């Protein structure tokens, strides 16, 4: 073959080979590119939309804090201002505080059960942190003498307030204020001697309730310190505590709820109640509306307790280093001049001692019913095991109740309304702590259709549950007749030892009763002079007749509450805490 021919053959064949090789290479590149895109898309899908990679979760700097209800306004404001600073950790994670409202005992239970959806907590008192750590240490079976593990870390104080007896100015004077020191003895004596004297304290789930109860046990045991479990369970002590508890009008869900009610009802509801000093200041400065009268903070001569509102981390393995940084940053913010001044304005005593309680910006003044040089002394807080005995003994010694539930099953209650109501009633029964409480039920629509007579829950629970399960909606609304039926049954029992109450619910307008509103109101006002019976009127939805509900509540010294299909269950749980 000639060289020219070979060259021609080469020059004719070579471009084709080159193109073929380039084409194959390009094809491979395209395949790889497609494969890479598919791999990227798949790895994104596996992670899921919005899902953080594990590395980001461990750097999470959002700290959720559980707080007790009475400081909702203060803490929400402080957290908002803190978050507005848009701080970041050294690895650029946003520092943020989120809040969740919980009762202190709920914080403890959730933390111990490992179900806390919060990483820090600020209950109303260090008592709760101590209870939490004490129970945690017991669960770890720490031997006496060994250093126990702790679940709640060191607490930080930013605001404190003493627990006081709040009384209307006229009531305070009738107790001896300001001429002489007033204390638990004066309150207890007056309550036992004067059937018209109305007072309350929350349950021992709240610091103020525990304090009032402790004061009763100290007084009953005849000591001012060194209360032991044996003293707390002594029959003489129990007799005294029973006698005092018989004078409690009702217990109630929290100090905040009581003071809100006081703002509406004034002195008609209660003459005195146990509450933190800060709420007295808030009340007198109009936070809950124009005060109907002035409240005075009485600092018990025998001693009181402080609500010290500690803030503490839950030391769990899931706590990230960044969450610790957030805690530290928030702690420093709470100690800042800006936050401390806000705390003082809200009526608390700030942890910053450089802020004068007597200064022009301080609301802790005689004009607002408080004395910042008080209290002079505190009650001795016993060891945790004695506190636990006091709480348990109180649950047995507390004033018992007769409660009749009045339940509307008119036609408008059909569907979800009735279903949710049934759930709420079951929740109410479940929340009642003792089987010795007496509960009855009156069901109505066009007339009173069914009555479960008052009896102890030990005997009545089955019948009540069956009745609730069998409720059906139809007919009109004979609300007043039903309430009168319940009222007359309680009057006939004449049991003034117990708290007598009606929880009367309706979702509509009264249209079928024989008794009129005025007649019933008059009957109540007369009858209550013999055996006081409180009506808690529940408006279920927006169609309920508020005038009727309000009139009955006022006539009996009770309350009106509003529930919706979504909130009715929670409302009945709250109402159960009054008993």
């Amino acid at each position: 073959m000639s060289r020219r021919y070979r060259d021609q053959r080469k020059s004719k064949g070579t471009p084709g080979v080159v193109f073929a090789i380039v084409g194959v290479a390009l094809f491979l590149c395209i395949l790889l590119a497609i494969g890479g895109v598919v791999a990227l898309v798949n790895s994104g899908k596996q992670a899921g939309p919005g899902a953080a990679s594990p590395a980001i979760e461990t750097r999470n700097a959002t700290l959720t804090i559980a707080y007790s209800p009475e400081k909702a306004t203060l803490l929400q404001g402080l957290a908002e201002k803190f978050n507005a600073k848009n701080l970041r950790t050294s690895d650029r994670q946003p520092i943020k505080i989120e809040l969740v409202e919980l009762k202190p005992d709920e914080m403890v239970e959730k933390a111990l059960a490992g179900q806390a959806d919060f990483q820090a907590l600020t209950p109303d008192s260090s008592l709760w942190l101590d209870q939490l750590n004490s129970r945690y240490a017991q669960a770890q079976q720490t031997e006496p003498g060994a250093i126990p593990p702790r679940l709640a870390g060191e607490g930080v104080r930013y605001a404190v307030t003493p627990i006081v007896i709040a009384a209307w100015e006229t009531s305070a004077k009738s107790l001896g204020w300001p001429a002489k020191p007033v204390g638990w003895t004066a309150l207890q004596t007056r309550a036992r001697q004067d059937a018209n004297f109305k007072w309350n304290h929350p349950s021992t789930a709240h610091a103020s309730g525990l304090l009032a109860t402790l004061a009763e046990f100290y007084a009953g045991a005849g000591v001012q310190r060194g209360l032991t479990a044996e003293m707390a369970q002594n029959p003489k002590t129990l007799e005294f505590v029973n006698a005092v508890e018989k004078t409690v009008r009702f217990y109630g869900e929290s100090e905040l709820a009581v003071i809100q009610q006081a703002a509406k009802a004034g002195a008609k509801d209660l003459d005195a109640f146990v509450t933190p000093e800060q709420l007295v200041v808030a009340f007198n400065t109009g936070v809950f509306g124009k005060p109907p009268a002035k409240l005075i903070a009485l600092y018990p001569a025998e001693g009181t307790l402080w609500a010290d509102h500690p803030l503490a981390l839950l030391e769990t393995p899931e706590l990230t280093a960044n969450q610790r940084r957030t805690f530290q940053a928030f702690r420093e913010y709470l100690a800042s001049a800006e936050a401390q001044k806000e705390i003082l304005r809200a009526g608390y005593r700030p942890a910053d001692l450089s802020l004068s309680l007597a200064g022009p910006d301080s609301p802790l003044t005689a004009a607002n019913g408080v004395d910042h040089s008080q209290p002079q002394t505190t009650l001795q807080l016993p060891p945790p095991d004695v506190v636990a005995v006091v709480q348990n003994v109180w649950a047995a010694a507390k004033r018992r109740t007769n409660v009749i539930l009045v339940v509307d099953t008119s036609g408008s209650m059909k569907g979800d309304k009735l279903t949710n109501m049934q759930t709420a009633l079951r929740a109410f029964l479940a929340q009642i702590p003792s089987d010795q409480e007496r509960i009855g039920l009156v069901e109505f629509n066009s007339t009173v259709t069914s009555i479960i007579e008052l009896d102890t829950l030990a005997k009545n629970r089955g019948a009540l549950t069956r009745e609730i399960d069998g409720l059906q909606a139809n007919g009109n609304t004979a609300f007043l007749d039903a309430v009168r039926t319940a009222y007359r049954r309680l009057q006939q029992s004449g049991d003034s030892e117990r708290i007598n109450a009606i929880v009367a619910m309706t979702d509509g307008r009264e249209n079928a009763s024989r008794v009129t509103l005025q007649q019933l109101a008059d009957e109540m006002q007369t009858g209550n002079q013999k055996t006081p019976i409180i009506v808690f009127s529940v408006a279920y939805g927006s169609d309920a007749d508020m005038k009727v509900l309000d009139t009955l509540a006022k006539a009996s010294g009770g309350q009106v509450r509003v529930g919706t299909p979504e909130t009715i269950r929670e409302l009945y749980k709250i109402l159960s805490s009054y008993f």
Partner: protein
Amino acid sequence: MNLAPILVTLGGGLLALILAIYFWVARGRGGGRTQAVFFTILAAVLLIVAAGLGWQRLGPNAAQQALVAVPRGPVQVRVLAALPIEPWVREAARQFNEKGLRQDGQPIEIQVTAMDGLTALGKFDRDEFGTLPGGKTRDQLTAAERQKLETTFPTVWIPDSRYLVELANAAYKERLSRDVFLTDGEYRAKPIAISLFTWGLYNSRATALEKKSGKIDWQVIHDAAIAKGGWPELGGDPAWGFFKLVVPNPRRNVGGLAAMIAAAGEYYDKPNISVAEVTDPKFQKWLKELMGALTDVSGASAYTAEDFALFGYSVGDGGQLLESDLLNSMAGIQKRWADPLVIRYPKYVTWFDFPFSIWVGPETTAAEKNAALQFQQFLLTPEIQKLAVAQGLRPVNSQVSIKEGDNLFVQWKSQGIEAVVQRTTRMATPSRDVLQALLRWFDLNVGK
């Protein structure tokens, strides 16, 4: 997972390969041999790099590596600081971090966590920080284990007193057969500030007690504690109620243990206390009577001097507390309660020396240890020691004086503060058995 580097390198490699093929083929038509060789080599390099990246990201160990929160940048020194010095150490850490100092080319970050000495000792006892089990090295840890070590294991512990360090060392010697905090050498535990226990009482209360009983000591306090008639019996105001003693809960605050040991020292009139002495029934009866004057035996009170200030005489008339805590509270107490504190020094003095103790085990890296040394040196500088003095602590740097100048020791001299403490007898550090005996007694008799 980021595949971009792999794809880019691979794409580049393939492009180089195409060009290499082209030039090899074109060479036959008189094209560039040089370009062909160049692109061949380039293609080979890029394809090898792509293969390596792929193996790293997609190979068998890749899944575990995805969990690693790779600490970027700073050498982190995690400091557990006892409560009385934590504010000072934290402020010092803030200033130190601002300086931007480096260790092995990396910036140093000091992180401070407040923790009572006993609480920290308990955590060390239970190995909650997670030491490496015998023989294991950091390289053998899983990613999650290494991450925990690098973010939570303390590099430095500054307890209230060196005896806590000795107790921790004793525990780890049994478990790991080595010291974890050294007592000699470059990394030895070194005091960075000192303070001591003194009596702090409200002036009104101290006046009444001293008038009735003379010099304040544990016996005088005991007699006040058991006075059935309360303050009227002691010459005080009836509104003051009973005598109220402030002693930190020993479960929450090592000062509580120190107070009980100091009480034992005065009871037996000697600075060395044995187990037999703290378990003696007569002493325990005396101690129980004393503790009966605590206002809060629930265990909640760990705040002591802070309690004095926040809650005033309502929770305590007086107690034996750390001088620095009292000094920090003097102004606030005067402002809040209009009744100043007075300070009285006990016969046998208990000192806290806050030793800066670096963890020398493999759980901390050399860089972390050396960075910790830098911070230790910083804490000992005159400027930072003066900061400690401003917070009521006594300096260890002899260049810094507390006898003159505008400091808390001079400011509160009139209230009994002594810049030079005349007492020479120091309470001996208790053995672990004595500590445990007292804690056990407290649990069973007071704070159960």
